[in-house]
């Protein structure tokens, strides 16, 4: 379940090719991070997976089935997204927004069933949002908003959860909290997580597969310990880092400021 296989994926904005011949299979890896410098094609890559951009046939397969052959509704029950920009300017409550995650399941004539409400309650609990369920989304902090959007994605009961920089503008305590939440969900609910990250240390800490992109191509791919090496980081990001080991060979990338 949730197996993705990509075969020769390309994308261009006008004359500029931003994804070049990307082919990759996600086997049993449950937590995949996509890293790379700005403009390396990370967001385009995940938007292709989400079918937000037009896609050729026989390029991306989910569970051995070409994703362009899924109906919009059916695909939304398999793959959910937490987008980069989670700004909502309308005054909906937390519960109302999470309930929207049930959209692909709700029959137009029957409306939401008790099952839908039960699932919403469960994901609110899983994301620690029960006390906030009747609050207006507009009044929440950045970390709380991010949790609401994750809860909405979970309400879709997806096999694959795709996140675009979910911890980008959060403080370190919320960064850890969100990453732990996503990790826990991927383990407990066996959801395949594919997330773009800027902070390479989180990729080392949480993921079991890391895709390093450079100029729209996969520069390296594998276990983060093997991918995020001094040499690769220097080649791709053009900075020299030190890699420290601590606690039982856990790795930490540090950037000496010179």
């Amino acid at each position, binding site marked *: 379940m949730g197996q993705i296989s990509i075969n020769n994926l390309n994308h261009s904005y006008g004359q500029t090719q931003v994804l070049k011949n990307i082919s990759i299979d996600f086997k049993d890896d449950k937590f995949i991070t996509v890293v790379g410098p700005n403009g390396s094609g990370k967001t385009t890559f995940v*938007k292709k997976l*989400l*079918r*937000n951009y037009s896609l050729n046939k026989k390029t991306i397969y989910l569970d051995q089935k070409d994703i362009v052959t899924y*109906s*919009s*509704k*059916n*695909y*939304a*029950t398999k*793959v*959910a*997204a937490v*987008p980069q*920009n989670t700004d*909502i*300017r*309308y*005054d*909906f409550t937390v519960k*109302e*927004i999470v309930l*929207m*995650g049930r*959209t*692909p399941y*709700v029959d*137009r004539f029957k409306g939401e069933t008790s099952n839908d409400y039960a699932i919403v309650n469960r994901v609110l609990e899983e994301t620690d949002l029960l006390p906030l369920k009747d609050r207006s989304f*507009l009044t929440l902090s950045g970390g709380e908003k991010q949790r609401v959007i994750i809860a909405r994605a979970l309400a*879709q009961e997806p096999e694959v959860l795709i996140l675009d920089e979910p911890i980008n503008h959060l403080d370190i305590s919320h960064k850890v909290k969100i990453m732990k939440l996503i990790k826990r969900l991927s383990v407990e609910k066996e959801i395949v997580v594919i997330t773009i990250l800027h902070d390479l240390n989180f990729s080392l800490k949480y993921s079991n597969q890391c895709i390093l992109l450079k100029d729209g191509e996969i520069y390296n791919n594998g276990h983060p310990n093997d991918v995020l090496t001094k040499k690769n980081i220097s080649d791709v990001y053009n900075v020299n880092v030190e890699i420290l080991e601590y606690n039982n060979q856990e790795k930490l990338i540090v950037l000496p400021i010179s």
Partner: protein
Amino acid sequence: MITKNNGKIIGLYTVILFVIIIFASTIGVADIRFNDALKIISSRIPFIKQFVNIEQMKTSSILIVLNIRLPRIILAGIVGIALATSGVVFQAIFKNPMADPYILGISSGAAFGATLVIIFGISFSFLGLSMISIGAFLGAMGTTFLVYNIARLNNRTPVITLLLSGIAISFFLSAFINLLMTMNNDQVEKIVFWTMGSVSSASWKSVAISIIPVVSGVSIFVFFSKELNVILMGEETAQNLGIDVETIRKLLLGVASIVSAAVVAVSGIIGFVGLIVPHAMRMIVGPDHKRLFPYTIISGAIFMIIADTISRIALNPTEIPIGVITSLIGAPYFIFLLVKNKKILS
């Protein structure tokens, strides 16, 4: 924000609309008492009419209420409902607070169509519709179609291109109308009065003709309430939640354009209703379209009926164009709501 007892409040609000309709039908040169108007109107409502006896009432009162005032009040209500609900749809689809039913060039297209008919003096009627109405409707629909196709790119219509092509075509047509008016001085008054909007030529026939597209169109809007809520979350999020955004947008823009064009054709260009009623209602009941539509429907009707009543009595016997009234009473109320909600909005 109103969230509880939704059904009861809407029921009460509907009663208020009914009282306003009866009250509006008592106002005018001929003096008709509230009770009499209530009886006359009730005598035409199925199930209730068997309990009402209007035999000893003056025939003139009955005629004035039923054949002169009531069609005009009902038409004003229909126009209000059509513009206010289309406004909700346009604002949701464009996610733009400045959007209103006229944003894709319906107003300038209708004015252009009406101007051509007036200048060329084409006068014949079809199904009881004047040629001006038909010209306005065709002008409005043609313009919307043109704007949509200018903006279309590889089967997608980026919102910003759609808005800008709407503005460009509107300016072009307005300039053309001004040119035509300069060349046809004698028709200027007629054209200007048409564009300012009025429901004074209302008859049961015009009510019957406009009610069909409005009722079916508004039913379609309500039917898509859930999708509109999700579209407010952003186009890509809506896609990721399994909604076919491009198809729904095309459908709802098409329906909203037909609904607006249908009432513009019979009433001229009545501004502000489609912009502020949706905003005012969103401030009061929140953005959820399942709640927003019922309140917008009733408020749009009440707002237009009051505006039309004022327009026909304030400077009696001269009628003030209804667009003047909608802006004169609508703008201050809207500013009041803005100031009250300033903290929440910012």
